[in-house]
């Protein structure tokens, strides 16, 4: 599979399959991830993101297909793969009973640092990640953002060639999220390839050079954020009118000015449209006010993950929990980080 003469890709996966019970969590998935930069894997809960990562990090054996990490097979050469990758799971995988310092010293020792070297490496990382003041507190007393940083610090005790970050910002407040983003950018600047899974399009957009969108265990779209957004329309306009009675009128006015179909949302006062031209949006909105249709709220921004999904799959992210796709058991597998 890796008979190429050029430098191997960070990851090359072909036909990966993982089955839990009667759910195909990962279903014939192909993925090629170049060395360097951030590669985003985008998908809703239960899409199979975590399962893919766990296979690539040698924690789960694929039921079919195969993959290589920097040219090394994830099954036959798992030990070499482990020496090149690091994993930060969806839930902070630190020992909550231990202090931040003890957690990092533990990892440093397990990786081969001796007593004093382990302590100095741990101190260096705690300082860099702004945790030195909490070094002697048990991790269970850390905030979510601190725990996440400790977790990432634990992943780079030895600088990995490839770092898996599984939903690193899920559940974090915006400031902690920005800090994690800064850390990811620093990692990339230092030459580590990062595979990042996320449910948030803006996160993938902020960080990733390329994105794969996964649904039902398959890659349904792949490309740069620009390419992906171009396929969905650059932005989305959401309007809520004050008087639901006048929504049909608003729909036709907007449709005329935007030159795009305008959809009626389940909310009886809401409309939405995919638009990529801000001037047309401004024109449409002012046309509404000229027609004396009061606007309660409006928002114009990037398409949401839902809209990307709608465009790519014809269904929204949430509706992937349709009955013929038993997500519950898979959720459980995914939740076990």
């Amino acid at each position, binding site marked *: 599979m890796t008979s190429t003469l050029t430098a191997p890709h960070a990851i090359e996966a072909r036909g990966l399959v993982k089955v839990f019970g009667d759910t195909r969590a990962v279903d014939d998935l192909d993925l090629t991830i170049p060395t360097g930069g951030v590669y985003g894997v985008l998908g809703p809960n239960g899409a199979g993101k975590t399962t893919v990562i766990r296979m690539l990090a040698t924690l789960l054996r694929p039921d079919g297909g195969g993959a290589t990490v920097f040219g090394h097979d994830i099954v036959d050469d798992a030990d070499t793969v482990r020496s090149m990758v690091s994993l930060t799971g969806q839930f902070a995988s630190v020992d909550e009973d*231990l202090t931040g310092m003890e957690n990092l010293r533990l990892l440093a020792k*397990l990786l081969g640092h001796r007593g004093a070297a382990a302590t100095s490496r741990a101190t260096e*990382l705690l300082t860099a990640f702004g945790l030195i003041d909490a070094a002697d507190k048990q991790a269970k007393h850390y*905030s979510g*953002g*601190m725990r996440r940083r400790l977790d990432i610090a634990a992943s780079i005790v030895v600088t990995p060639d490839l770092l898996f970050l599984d939903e690193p910002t899920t559940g974090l407040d915006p400031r902690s999220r920005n800090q994690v983003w800064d850390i990811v950018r*620093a990692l990339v600047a230092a030459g580590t390839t990062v595979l990042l899974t996320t449910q948030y399009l803006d996160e993938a957009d902020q960080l990733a050079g390329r994105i794969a969108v996964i649904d039902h265990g398959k890659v349904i779209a792949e490309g740069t954020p620009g390419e992906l957004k171009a396929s969905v329309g650059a932005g989305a306009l959401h309007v809520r009118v004050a008087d639901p009675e006048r929504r049909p009128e608003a729909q036709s006015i907007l449709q005329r000015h935007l030159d795009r179909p305008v959809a009626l949302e389940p909310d009886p006062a809401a409309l939405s449209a995919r638009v990529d031209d801000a001037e047309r949006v401004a024109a449409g909105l002012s046309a509404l006010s000229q027609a004396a249709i009061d606007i309660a709220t409006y928002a114009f921004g990037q398409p949401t993950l839902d809209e990307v999904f709608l465009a790519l799959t014809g269904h929204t992210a949430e509706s992937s929990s349709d009955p013929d796709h038993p997500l519950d058991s898979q959720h459980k597998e995914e939740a076990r980080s």
Partner: protein
Amino acid sequence: MTDTLAPDLAPADVDSILSALASGERPKRPNALSVSITHGWRALLKIKHVPEQLFDVTIFPIMMTLMFTYLFGGALAGSTKAYLQFFLPGILAQSVLFITMYTGVGLNVDHEKGIFDRFRSLPMWRPSAIVGPLLGDAVRYSIASTVIIVMGLILGFRPDGGVVGVVASVLLLLVFAFSLSWIWTMFGLILRTEKSVMGMSMMLLFPLTFASNIFVSPDTMPGWLKAFVDVNPISWLVTSVRGLMHGEASGSDIGKTLIACAVLVAVFAPLTMRAYRNKA
């Protein structure tokens, strides 16, 4: 110790992170023993932070020894003091063997918390994540043994085997406890919840320890039960521990006990490691 931390004001510093990344070269891969000891060190750190967990190795054995000695001693052996000479080595074995089940429970909890994923993704000798905690447990077993023996001495237990005999008997017990623990590590990885691990361990430990020669000599038992007691490895262990403590150990009992240890490890260590590898 339980105060919440001040608001998280110290941000991560990108420049220091870059320099930390630049100095993150990989040290020489540690050997199997050294990673196992590191895992054992983690177990001891947990005792430091959660000292309550030492209740099972201190209070519980004291309770058991007092209760059985004074409840049954007079009736079974004429006097509590006479019973204690027979019973103390047995209750020592039982107490330590009961503590072994927490190994499986702890492993199960670790897995639920996700830290096992990190261990499993490290390039290290894989059994160390299991062997290490078992080494740490040896410390707990030693504490329990010391507590029971000291209490026995206070109550009037007089081992004829002297210090050497007592130390040798505790060492044999530690080896057996280590070997038996592989059953619980396997259950710890296979069963879903910590409660089911606990339940399964109890279900095996109760009959195995009570249907042995820990409490009474099997001579008065019905034939079928005596037959079981005679082939129960825990009886071999207890006979050996008793023998060593009283300076009348037989090589064949110790030999049988050690063979039982070897069989336990040979069967359950591979099963545990298989469960560890395949854990979803």
